[in-house]
């Protein structure tokens, strides 16, 4: 009888120990013995069901030719390329709807950045844009059902602010200068200028674009260059001078000084 009690007690103790230790065991990192000798996991996942069988549709050479021709006939694209003096084709992206191919995007890199002032329909969400910016590339979405351009995307080139001020109309240039002063009062911008003063560096302002649509906004970049370090701060300010967004890149160089 005492032996039976002892056995039951022992079994209960083992169960209790297992319950108590289970969470710890489950949360412990792998032991060396459990790890693979290599630096990759020893076990790879397997698909529960058959992987997708239908590969993404591509664009045929004939479709690429059509997309290229239609894109090049778009007035904005034609004008940009003409003023840039040439282009290189970046590549193509097939466009699908419910999994089926409906057209393709083509990207053109311009031979040099050119000033753009006007409205266009974006290929991303078909939003209306009204933009003043230097442009260094243009992407065009050609729908192969209507054989038409449904939207474009202009890639803004960063230029020194003075360069953009020369291209803007006087009232727009005044607006940008006014917004620049507002942006300079942003704490993060002030901090960047203070840092530049401390490090004996400079802050240059680059212009990305003045938007009237989809929202009234100005995009500026403040670039700190010092011997010790460099840093980029991007500011999006609305036409009333309110900061919409500020993002800062990591400092490059001596971390202790930046």
């Amino acid at each position: 009888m005492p032996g039976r009690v002892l056995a039951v007690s022992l079994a209960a103790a083992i169960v209790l120990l297992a319950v108590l230790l289970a969470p710890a065991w489950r949360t412990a990192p792998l032991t060396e013995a459990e790890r693979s000798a290599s630096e990759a996991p020893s076990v790879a996942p397997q698909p529960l069901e058959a992987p997708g069988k239908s590969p993404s549709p591509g664009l045929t050479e004939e479709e690429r030719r059509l997309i290229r021709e239609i894109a090049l006939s778009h007035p904005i694209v034609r004008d940009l390329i003409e003023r840039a003096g040439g282009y290189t084709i970046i590549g193509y992206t097939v466009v699908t709807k419910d999994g089926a191919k409906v057209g393709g995007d083509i990207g053109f890199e311009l031979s040099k950045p050119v000033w753009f002032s006007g409205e266009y329909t974006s290929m991303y969400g078909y939003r209306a844009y009204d933009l003043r910016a230097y442009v260094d590339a243009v992407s065009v979405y050609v729908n192969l059902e209507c054989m038409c351009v449904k939207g474009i995307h202009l890639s803004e080139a960063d230029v020194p602010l003075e360069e953009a001020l020369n291209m803007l109309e006087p009232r727009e240039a005044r607006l940008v200068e006014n917004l620049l002063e507002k942006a300079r009062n942003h704490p993060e911008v002030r901090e960047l200028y203070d840092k530049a003063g401390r490090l004996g560096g400079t802050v240059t302002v680059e212009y990305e674009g003045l938007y009237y649509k989809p929202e009234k906004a100005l995009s500026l970049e403040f670039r700190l260059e010092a011997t010790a370090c460099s840093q980029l701060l991007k500011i999006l300010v609305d036409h009333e001078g309110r900061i919409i967004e500020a993002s800062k890149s990591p400092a490059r160089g001596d971390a202790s000084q930046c």
Partner: protein
Amino acid sequence: MLRRIKSFTSILAILPLAAILVTIITYSASTSNLIILVVLNDKFYNYDFVCKDPGCDSPNKVDWPINILFWNNAEVNKIKSNYWGLEPCWLTAIPRHLKMDDGFGWFWDSDCGTKLFDEPLRIRLCSISADEVHYHMRLYADPEKDYNYNSGWGKYVLAAAHIDDGEGLEDWAGFSELAEDYVAYWGRALGWAVAEDWANFYNNESCRRDDGGSHIWYNNGYATAVKVP
């Protein structure tokens, strides 16, 4: 040496713009490659999703391919603090969701991710040209523990990394493969072991965009494993 990133987003008076940006970002994409992957007793989908309501685990509600496995001793916040910080859920980083089973049944995790702003990267790929990008990575695991566990991977976290347009307004997002490369580079700089393109996650996507959308698909289907010490 890589530095801890201090990123911030300050929003003062932006409701109209916020509405516009969120409209773009929440546009869901579609894939024919959505499947469940199994490892030991665990399961997970090979894409994250734009929603987590019933029926959201659908090929028409996907966001990005799962392309990174952090394993061995991983935890969500440990990874974020070693990568690009804890991104607040706001305009530039809204939550996405992954459905997983850590051996005890299906659950969802949501994350806004970790984001590195304004990094120079020359892209001349598909139909896109860019010279400046934001890297964005969302991390998923059992929200109660901040990690999942199995005996093959130890404490692990799954991640979906992609690039956001870094020029002008944030217009497009994509190129998961390029973001995966950068996550691998960052991991090595931290001194962590990295096995690039380690295992097939069956989410290969060639250059593709959905009509009207801002998603640029580009992923080779093979996920990178980063061993967290």
